Every structure is written in C-alpha cells, then in structure tokens.
C-alpha cells in the first residue's frame, strides 16, 4: 500500500525557509505573494494489505520519526492498491 504523509510546522513556529522564499520571491518579481510556508512530503510504500493496520503503522511512524510533534503537525493519506 502507498501512503502520503504531509508534515507542516505548527502555527507560530518560525519557518526560516518559508521566510527566505517569501523574500526571494519578492526580489524575483512576485509582488502579490502574501505568505509562504514550507513543509515536508513523504511517499511511503508498505507491504500491508489491511487498510486499518496500514493507517495505524503509518501514524505510528509519523509520530515516532517523520514528524517532530513538538513543532510539526502531520496528515496522512493512504490510497489502497
């Protein structure tokens, strides 16, 4: 099964990359950019046919490793295949 995990910084957490990109976009002539936030995106293939089990596993690995839950939120999408 294939899972897609999106990890974004929580609101209020400083995002140096987002800030820098905002700035760069300005100098590159994109005046109408209001804000940029950068996050991470993971595509994980797991050998698991049971959707519920898969979701549980993915959720656990997100908590344990993929996201630092002190500063980041994550969302999971799983497409059965």
């Amino acid at each position, binding site marked *: 099964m294939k899972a897609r995990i999106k990890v974004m910084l929580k609101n209020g957490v400083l995002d140096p990359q987002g800030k820098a*990109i905002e700035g760069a976009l300005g100098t590159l002539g994109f005046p109408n950019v209001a804000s940029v936030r*950068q996050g991470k995106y993971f595509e994980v293939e797991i050998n698991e046919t049971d959707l519920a089990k898969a979701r549980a596993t993915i959720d656990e690995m997100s908590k344990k490793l993929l996201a630092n839950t002190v500063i980041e939120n994550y969302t999971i999408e799983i497409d059965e295949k």
Partner: protein
Amino acid sequence: MSANDIEITPKLIAEHGLKSDEYQRILDLIKRTPTLTELGIFSAMWNEHCSYKSSKKWLRTLPTTGPRVICGPGENAGVVDIGDGQAIIFKMESHNHPSYIEPHQGAATGVGGILRDVFTMGARPIAALNALRFGAPDHPRTRHVVSGVVAGVGGYGNSFGVPTIGGEVNFDESYNGNCLVNAFAAGLADTDKIFYSEAKGVGLPIVYLGSKTGRDGIHGATMASAEFDQDTEEKRPTVQIGDPFSEKLLLEACLELMQTGAVIAIQDMGAAGLTCSAVEMGAKGDLGVELNLDMVPCREDAMTAYEMMLSESQERMLMVLDPSKEKEAEAVFRKWQLDFAIIGKTTDDLRFRVFRHGELMADLPIKELGDQAPEYDRPWVATPKPAMVPTSEFAAPNDITQTLAKIIALPDMCSRRWVWEQYDHLIQGNTAIGPGGDAAVIRIGDGPKALAFTLDVSPRYCFADPEEGGKQAVAECWRNLTAVGAEPLAITDNLNFGNPEKPEIMGQLVGCIKGIGAACIALDFPVVSGNVSLYNETNGTGILPTPAIGAVGLLPDIAIRTTIAFKAADEAIVIIGATAGHLGQSIYARDILGRRSVDAPPPVDLAIERRNGDFVRDEIRARAFTAVHDASDGGLLVAVAEMVMASGIGATVEAPDDIALHAWAFGEDQARYVVTLPQSSVAGLLSRAEKDGIPAIVIGATGGKELTLKGSAPISCETLKEMHEGWFPAYMAGPNLLNA
C-alpha cells in the same frame, strides 16, 4: 530486454561521441560490429575525459619525478614523501559541465569524486580547496551558479568532515555558459600503507563496495567531453546526486578494510564508473577482467548491462580481494551499512568480459580499451607573442588611493569571505592558517610538522601568452607557499581549455603545458597528479585558458610560519624583489582603464623567482619577518592594503621617484614579497640581501589607522575593509533563482 544487439547506426555512434575514424578503429580492433554495451564501453573509455587522447602527448613532457615523489601521475592521486614515514596524497579534478547544468549537485559530486581519489589510496583527507570560475556578474545565470556551487562544495565537504581551507574565485564573461569547478583534496597516509589500483593475481575476486547503482549520470563522462549547445537541456537527466553521508561511511569503511590486509588493489568508481575502474585495474595489471552484472547491487529495477556499465552513481569503489580475508572484509562493510558484493574475477587472457542474465554482453581487449586507447597529435598553432607595452601607454589615475579603493572592491579582487564562511575550515582542529592568506596551513597530527596548500592561475595572462601564463601560475603557487614559510614540494594541475580540435585552442594548451613544465623544472616542483578538461565552450566560444595549479609545501616547524597581517606599529615595510611597474594585463589596465588589447603579461624570470623565494624562506626560517605577503594581482599597493585590512594596523608608504606612481602602485611584476620587521633589524636584512644580490628597499612603516601613500590623501582601514568586504554579500543579495 537487453537491446544489446540493436543496430549500430552512424547516428548512434555520433551520440556516443565517437568520431568515424575512432569507430573504424573499433571495427579493426574487434573485427565485428560492437554490441550496444560495447559501444557504450568504448565511448566511455575513449572519450577525452578518461583517455586524455588530445593531451597525453603533451602531459608526458611534464617533470613528474623528484627525491620526494613516491607516486606520480597515473594513479588516483599523486603521493609525496613528507618524512617520518608519512606521505601526502593529493590531486585536483574538474566537474565543470555538471556544475553548470546543476550547480549544487554538480559541485558536490565534484568534491565527492576528488575525496574518493584520495582515500581510495589509503589516505585520510585533511584538506580540501577549490578553484571556481564564473561568468560575468551581470550575466543572468551567474548568481544562481555561484550560490549553487558554493553551497554544493560546502555542503559536501562540511558533512564529510574535511576542512575546506582555500581556493580561488574569478568572474569572466568567457565562463558565462561554462563555469569551472576544480576541486582539490589532500590526504595523509603512512608510506608503507598506500594502496594502488593495479590488479595483481589471476582468478581473484573483484568486489563492489559502497552505494547502490542507479541510472545516474549515464553518459556523464561523454557529456564532460562535449561542447554545450542549445539542446543541453536534453542532457539534464544525467545529473548525479551527491550523498556525503554515504561517502563518510565509505571513507571509514575503506580505511578499516585496508587495516585487515584484504585489499590487493582498489580504485574508486569515478567518471564512467564500473567500466573505467574495472578496465583501469585490469589493464594496469596486465590482467583480464570478467564481470557478472547480476551481482551488482542496484537501486532501480531492470537495469541493462549498458546502463550498469555507464552508470555514474556516486560513492562506489571496486577492489581486488584477498579471498582468505573475505569474511572480515564483508563484516566491515556490513557494520557501516554499505554494500559489499563479489561481482567478478581477474583472468589471464587480457579480455574484458561482461555477463548479464548469463548472456555475454561485451567481450573486448582490455589493453586497447585502457592504457592503449587512441592518442592524438592534434594540430596546433602557437599563440602569437604579444607586445610588451611601455608604462607610458597606460594613463595615470587622478587619485591613487581612490583607485586603490576601487580595485580592492572589484569582483575579482574583493574579499571571498561570503564564500569561505560557508565552508567548515576549522574541523579536525589543525587549521593554523585558514582561508584568506597566501597559503593555508594545516598541522600534521600533533606537529611540529605542517603542510601548506594553495591554488592559483591567472587566466588573463594565459590568454595573452600561454607559456608565460603557465610559468606564472606555477611560480605564484611556489611563491604563496614560500610566503608562509613552507618548502614547496610538488603540484597537481587541472587544465581547463576549449575545443582542442581548434588549432588555436590546442596551441593554448601546448603553450601552457610548456610554461608549466619549464617552471616545474626551474623550481624543482614536480607534477604528481592532475586532470584535463577540454571542450569548455558554449556555442563555439571558448573559455580563457585556465590551467589551475594546486600546490603543497612543507613546514618543518609550525611555530615558524608567517601570515599577511601586520603585527605591530612602527615596523619597517620592505619590498623584496625588483619593481619595474609592468602594467600589461594588470588588474589596473583591465578593470580601471578598461583596456582590452592583448598586451604582454608580466614576464616570469624563473631564476630570479627562485633566488628571491629562497632568500625570503631562509629569512622566515631565521625568524627575521613579522609578516609576509607576496605581491600579485593588483600590485604592490594592493598587497600592502591587504596586510592593513588583515590587521587593522595602518601604514605610511612612499614610492621611489624613478618610477611612475601608478606603475609602482599597481604594476604586477613577479617574484616580489612585501615583508615587515622591527626597525632595528632592517640594516641587517638589507646587507644580507645586497650580499645575495637581491633587490630590497624600505618603502615605509606600519602604524596608525590609515593607509597613507605620500603625496595623496590617506584612507582609513575601516573604509578599506568596508569596500573590500562589501561587494560579495551585496551582489549575492540580488535576485537569485536559488532552489529552496
């Protein structure tokens, strides 16, 4: 699946960068049409990058031996004896074309490649330097290339854990479509524990080490020898990604492996990966090689023999293993979580055979692929000798100090801090002199020994007069090492030129090599390694001839080293070496007067160079000087200004009246050093100099917070620093297509 027997069309042959005469040579050699895999193998082995077919004839003329040379050109890197059973192993290599296509990854993998060349011989890297050449600052792509290349060089070296301690940065429109990234690395080894790539013994296992193989950089080696044109886009998928983390593991694993005695021969997989390394190891050892590609650790599915043989996936090595040590050897690589796979064996029939799914995909004569590859004597025309232009032809500025301030803020002359602060130049804790001086100095272990490193070349000199330019590049390296108190040992060279099929370009290459050779002989400064990068052109315009020289020197006692910073006020400032005020090809002429005519560069008198340098070194060793700086780009006044800026201590200097002031201030005569010493010991120095027939004159004294040239308005250290430090950060703050 393995479309190995597809028809070999003229188009296909051309796409593999093989000329029709070269293809004919293949047919004569194997007496049949090659398979696709074989065609790929030939294209990889016979291209310029791996075969040196255009340059070999001339490289042979370089002096490559000396009392300290343990191993010269021909191995992964050169090996030089530094006493006490230790050797320094170093080389410089280009990654120009990949760095233009993807600056960050191109530069990163360039650094990775040269580090492997060094540790594949058993040396732990202790220093990295890099010579970078970019297009005109106002060219739309330049800023992106600069930020990407610097981030790539730093990103790889910093993570790997080697101090990056110096290099060069130039801007010139001739590099607009073809930047130069020349990476230098040096490593330390015991003279009795050096590893070579020559295979020995028949029927011994050939082992694949490191990261897995993917479809990375297929045809990278061919690309590195092809001129850019509009369809460069097409070549993009060949970009390789560097993984410094795996490289660090590979370093530790290899050094541990070498302790086990399992290694009979070892060779990194660089350009043309598996093909080049396997063929080189076999050919050098007069052995055949048989590979079973089914055993090669792959990252991607369904890779064909063709793809595996041409893949340039990074962080991989090939070795000939002592079978009795297999278990230990494998354990080491498992510990470091790297691949270890026996993929073939040595044979006694001088054939290079490659099997895939039990099928024979290639069966070629190994010697002709390797050390007997084609070699050309390309037609060349010598660059016409440029005219010596008298000082009177160069207009004087209205204000010398204002002109000085302009010069130290030029793109080619300003501080490179923005660049080298992105490089970890302190890691390993042995950096005695970091970036920003004449040469960087690294302590060996706990000392007292230390090594000095520098890179140099002045492309504008080489363009005007290749032979003088070649000499000058070597001489300036030798001078830089001398200026910190080091004994120059040996050099590596990275020859970057345009299309050698053009006689004028070939003439530049020949001229530069002649000059380099002459300087190496006169200065006892042998060439122990190097690299050639040709076809550096975009849409038919060649780069300036750029034979970058990397040099290494030895300090017996690190306590006796000199730096460019003034140390105290009221010390005498002395110029060692004659000042004629040569302005041809000077920064002043090019950037202040905007002069474009091809005037003669400053002549290099190698005998004088040596005499002056040996004198300065002896005085340094006798602790006569408090600061030393060689005068080069920009001239005397710029050298003094750099000493002022490095220390924050001012100076008052006066020109003799028998020479035009601007020629004295900005002329680029060679073989000169600016030194400081206590007033009390000036007389002694001058008489020793006179006795040896060395020109030495006092031009002033240190002190205050300003640089004052008698007869013109003083300028404060602060202003000088601001001007000098300002350009790079301001430039890089501009619009930049950086990739987040």
